[in-house]
């Protein structure tokens, strides 16, 4: 961004530091992936073994015996649905707060304050609510009973909306108003203005919010563990089946974790391009 002629030395220093930071960030995950290819006798040994005959048994164990793809399918469905709900509802609400300042900040404050209540104290009321909705035929049909995906989708939507709204309000406010006024003058209805002008401009904000909402849903443990049993269990609950009476099955749990990282990384790479493209389109030259 600063077009100052950067000397070669600072470039080397910059990339050196970046490599160092990335090494610190990536190493634990790398060690996890390495462990996922290790046969059991090479895992818990000292000194740690770097050279070993790689095996795919851990993946076979994770996928077939522990049926881990089922948990990933569940988590994908629940996380993506929640993220879509959060981003849509959040973007609409955030736009309203950013432009019309509904409630003069008090509603915004209330929304964020709902995030300040510890999940542990909330978990039992949710459990009782979803148990009762599960008893009704409508509830079961809509899938909002216990051990049904609907229960987790509502909980995750509720838990991530405050974060999404606050993040999006700041992104919406960075968008200059003139573009909207001119679009309105051209006779576009409000919803068209939103869809055609405002949202494309706020693309980076929406993409970042979408990515992190998905991450929060993907990693959540407490609600998933209490509100599901088997049919709707997510990855974080599925990992428990690797904690056995004979101890932690390090190889298979590493394999399961490595598999569960892939969809998330694919989504980030997808959103990556979208975030960058959004940038160049907007008033800001890249």
């Amino acid at each position, binding site marked *: 961004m600063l077009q100052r002629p950067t000397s070669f030395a600072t470039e080397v220093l910059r990339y050196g530091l970046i490599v160092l930071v990335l090494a610190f960030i990536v190493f634990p995950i790398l060690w996890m992936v390495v462990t996922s290819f290790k046969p059991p006798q090479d895992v818990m040994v000292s000194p740690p073994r770097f050279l070993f005959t790689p095996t795919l048994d851990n993946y076979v164990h994770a996928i077939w015996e522990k049926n881990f793809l089922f948990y990933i399918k569940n988590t994908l469905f629940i996380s993506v649905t929640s993220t879509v709900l959060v981003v849509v509802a959040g973007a609409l609400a955030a736009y309203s707060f950013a432009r019309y300042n509904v409630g003069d900040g008090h509603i915004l404050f209330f929304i964020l304050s709902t995030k300040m209540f510890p999940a542990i104290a909330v978990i039992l009321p949710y459990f009782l609510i979803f148990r009762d909705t599960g008893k009704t035929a409508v509830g079961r049909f809509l899938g909002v009973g216990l051990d049904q995906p609907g229960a987790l989708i509502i909980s995750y939507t509720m838990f991530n909306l405050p974060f999404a709204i606050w993040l999006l309000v700041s992104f919406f406010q960075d968008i200059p108003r003139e573009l909207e006024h001119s679009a309105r003058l051209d006779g576009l209805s409000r919803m068209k203005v939103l869809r055609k002008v405002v949202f494309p401009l706020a693309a980076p904000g929406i993409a970042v919010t979408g990515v992190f909402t998905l991450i929060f849903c993907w990693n959540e443990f407490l609600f998933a563990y209490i509100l599901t049993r088997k049919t709707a269990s997510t990855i974080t609950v599925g990992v428990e089946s690797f904690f056995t*009476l004979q101890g932690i099955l390090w190889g298979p749990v590493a394999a399961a974790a490595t598999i569960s990282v892939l969809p998330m990384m694919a989504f980030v790479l997808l959103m990556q391009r979208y975030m960058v493209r959004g940038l160049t389109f907007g008033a800001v030259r890249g």
Partner: protein
Amino acid sequence: MKQILIAGAVASTALVATVGAASAQACNDADRVPITWSTIAGFYTDAMAKLVSGFEAKNCVKVNVVNIDNSQLYNKQVIEMVGQTGAYDVVTLETSEKAEFAENGFILPMTDYFADKKAQLDDVAPTLAALTTQYKGDVWGLPYYTYTAGYIYRADLFDDPTEQAAFKAKYGYDLAVPTTWAQHRDIAEFFTRKKGDKLKGEELTKDFYGVGLMAGPFPEIQDEMSGVLWSQGADWLTDDGKVPVDAVEKAMDDYLKLVKFAPPAALTVTYDGVMNQMKDGQIAQTYSFFLDQWPNAVTTEQSVPGARMGVAEAPEKKAYIGGFLLAVSASSTHPKEAMDFVAYIGGHDAQMEFAKAGGTSTLMSVLSDPQFATPESRAKTGHFATLLKIFDDMKGFRSNLFDTPFGAKIYNTMQIPLQAAAAGQITARQAAEQLASDVEKICGGPCPIGK
């Protein structure tokens, strides 16, 4: 000869419609009664799957097994019980949880179910049955897996002439399986060596430790300390429901003397950490340790050259006794089938299958079965003989911790003061006093003991 016998047995069971009106053949999948069993994942999940399909063959039932992490099993099952969701028909309880679940009406008494199956009940090891199945005069289920504690050690170190001579010179008595906790500590001190020292004549490439301890933030440190406490004739709760502070302090002091000879990781691990250390040839012996881990420990003979594993009763013949109890949830919609399932899994045939897969059975008939005493099956069932000795020596033993309805809550939080002392944050006295005040807070005064 054997084949005919089995054929006869199968024929007789088919004739005697022992279980359920609809015989297994006529049952198609549509009208199978679904029951859910919440339990802990384990090596034996494949053996378990065989057992479950064995049951489904005989009864018109569909069993689905829900695997839960051992540290979450207690809270998850209580929530489902309190919510009366009927989600779990058969639950898996630890020894300390039976009293609470029975007292609060979470599980159904099975006394009359077993009224006409006296033989099956008596087959359960009496010491174990008293602790796991009985509460206030009723029978509440059957134990299907026991983690009773004993003592596991590197026998090759004990038989090494150079080590024996060095030990005799230093301590004045022969190096052998310890019969008192003091001998156990001497052995721990003797085998603690630095990298570069000699062990069995060879130079050590990494530090070696005299004992492996489970001093991590898990509810296992109290299992280890139970051995010392009970061998002093004390118990975690006196008969009037209070913690004997002096006895606990003494047991804690003994433990602290041992922590010096344990690897630093002892403060962060539980039984699987100790097993990893044993299999990597880092420790010489365990403290009072769960014998169901024997098949796990014996693999040390492959991972450490020249190693040979030994198993014995814990010093002074007192160690933690416990097992996983199968009980029927009060909110179950199919209690009859659930009870049949409990009786089947805790019964002779299933337990034989379970033992063959390396599971530690709870029935005297299985534990004393000659086919498990053979050298070939040593790797899987070498510890059965020791278990029989333990059950015999501790006959009639009862602990107040397992007979108070607050047992589960105490058991799931008592490790905190004990571990704080092991980590050196507080003294043994403070730990004992902290435990006493915690227990009093949990029970709201002295704890009620319901024999």
